[in-house]
């Protein structure tokens, strides 16, 4: 079975009680208490002010986490291929589109329409950072975190260059709340690098067993996971914070999981 070895060069996060990686790391280590309040709308410096006002929440969350990870990795965003991964994309935009289509379809906003594509966050990011490297936008339903991690690691190993992964989902809005069980927004990002000789390494393999995926070892983290599937990433983020060798099973699709070794 093939394995992918990558280094985690940068981490970013924007989520309830976890509005930066240094804060999240301290909370995951138990050095600080978790405060569950929803954070303010992020104001990612990576986006120009006009775009920050116009962009949907999903774009703000994703780009906030992405920019933090790039800064930590000392990576130039314009040079990084990027993988954006999300279960649902921007639910508020979907709610707007479907509400308007049900009432006044000929009055649909052209800007909201182009913001409705699943790759809106990847598009805003590449435009704001001047990135002409490949970008993609994925979904594997509630296993989008694992599917994005696999694709980012594959690209890192294939190209021998760092790759940005941004995983995000936003709270459900409007009538979609009756079917999409997301009641908070959550984004995290990793910069993966191919030079795995030093630093925190991840070794990815296809999981051969059929057991359950790993949960974070913290009540508040499990609560967040129930509120937003992007928080599936917390098991990995906790392992990165602890810095001890660990083996995790992360869902990457129906009937398909990754076995991830975290090796500090």
């Amino acid at each position, binding site marked *: 079975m*093939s394995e992918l070895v990558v280094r985690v060069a940068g981490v970013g996060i924007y989520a309830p009680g976890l509005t930066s990686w240094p804060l999240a790391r301290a909370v995951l280590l138990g050095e600080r208490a978790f405060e569950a309040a929803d954070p303010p709308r992020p104001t990612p410096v990576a986006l120009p002010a006009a775009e920050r006002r116009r962009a949907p929440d999903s774009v703000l969350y994703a780009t906030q986490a992405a920019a933090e990870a790039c800064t930590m990795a000392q990576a130039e965003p314009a040079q990084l291929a990027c993988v954006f991964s999300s279960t649902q994309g921007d639910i508020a935009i979907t709610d707007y589109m479907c509400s308007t289509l049900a009432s006044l379809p000929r009055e649909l906003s052209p800007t909201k329409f182009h913001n409705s594509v699943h*790759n809106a966050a990847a*598009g805003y990011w590449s435009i704001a950072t001047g990135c002409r490297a490949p*970008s993609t936008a994925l979904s*594997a339903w509630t296993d989008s975190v694992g*599917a994005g991690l696999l694709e980012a690691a594959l690209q890192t190993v294939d190209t021998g260059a760092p790759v940005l992964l941004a995983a995000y989902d936003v709270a459900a809005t409007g009538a979609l709340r009756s079917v999409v069980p997301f009641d908070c927004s959550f984004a995290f990002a990793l910069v993966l690098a191919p030079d795995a000789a030093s630093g925190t390494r991840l070794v990815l393999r296809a999981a051969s067993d059929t057991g359950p995926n790993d949960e974070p070892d913290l009540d508040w983290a499990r609560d967040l996971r129930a509120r937003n599937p992007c928080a599936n990433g917390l098991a990995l983020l906790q392992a990165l914070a602890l810095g001890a060798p660990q083996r995790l099973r992360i869902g990457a699709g129906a009937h398909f999981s990754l076995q991830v070794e975290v090796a500090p």
Partner: protein
Amino acid sequence: MTAYTATSAAGCGVDAFHVALRERRGGLRSNDFGDAPLSCWIGRVDGLEEAAVPGEFAAIDCRNNRLAWRGLQQDGFLGQARAAVARYGADRVALVLGTSTASIAATEEAYCDLDLGGNFQQSYRNFLLHSPHSLAAFVQGVLGTRGPVCTVATACSSSAKVFAQAERLIRLGWADAAVVGGVDTLCGSVLFGFNALQLVSDEPCRPFDITRRGISIGEAAGFALLERADRYQAAPRLLGWGESSDAHHMSSPHPTGLGARLAIGDALQRAGLSAAAIDYVNMHGTATPANDAVEAVVVTETFPESTRASSTKGWTGHTLGAAGIVEAVVCLIALEQGFMPGTLNCIQPDPACGPQLALANIARAPQIVLSSSFGFGGNNAVLVFGCGGRA
């Protein structure tokens, strides 16, 4: 590529599509979709309203999955894909599908029928039915794959990018075979959305014509089975792929086509070929004034005069997230049937077009072909295919 198929307004399955291309018979019709249709032309696949998916998938029955089901049944594709799953083992077959609409039509329907509390009626309360991954989940259920599975949703480049992702999975040892493809269906979001952007033509789309007035939206399903080339010498092959971002605008192309040029260059480099080796280019060619103007210049400046280039959207309409796979199938038909399709509905070419632009079909067999797909967000993907038997 050991199996492939496409279903669109231009025909169900490769044989029907081939005949439509040969006979220059387009599939566009005056818009008859929905209750208060816009005045435009569409590429609609008939009979989906009466063709539910198999009962075990009733919870995610929707127009998009119905079209996926119709598409899987053409050209024996379903049997060949299931045979690959049996041959390699379910966990060694990846599934990577592109879509832009996915099942959003079902969400639109649910919003037209909310209960008194403003919530979805019980009959619509299935989370997966309202997710972009509904297509891949359905096809995975039908095929029984248990390997890597992923939806690529980068608007109109989606089902071209799936080839790149699947090729990486196979080459780096994560799968022995991959089913790729894409499905997009007509729905209010895309018809009224592109209308809001003033990109929809009130007549059948006329790619690269000087008086073109915009796109005709179509729906389509297409699939291909990728296996290692060394096992199947005679099968047509994926020689290269290229990807890039425009970094310019969410819904307008870069003015000089910089991202398109980067993706073409990336694909040629990966294939180890020069632009002079490309016999035929299937252009993105949506028939919007801006897209075609930029792409015409890119093709004129990138390829030699001997290369032939066309847009086949006059046959199918712009099938958005399915355009990549539909046009990959056009390229495979060109390779295997020995001709190059021209550009339907283009009468007077835009002067920006070079001698590469083919209006009429050309009765010459291409050996190496290239397909371009460009999407919103400035997302670009280019594929290069060649005949079987090449080293």
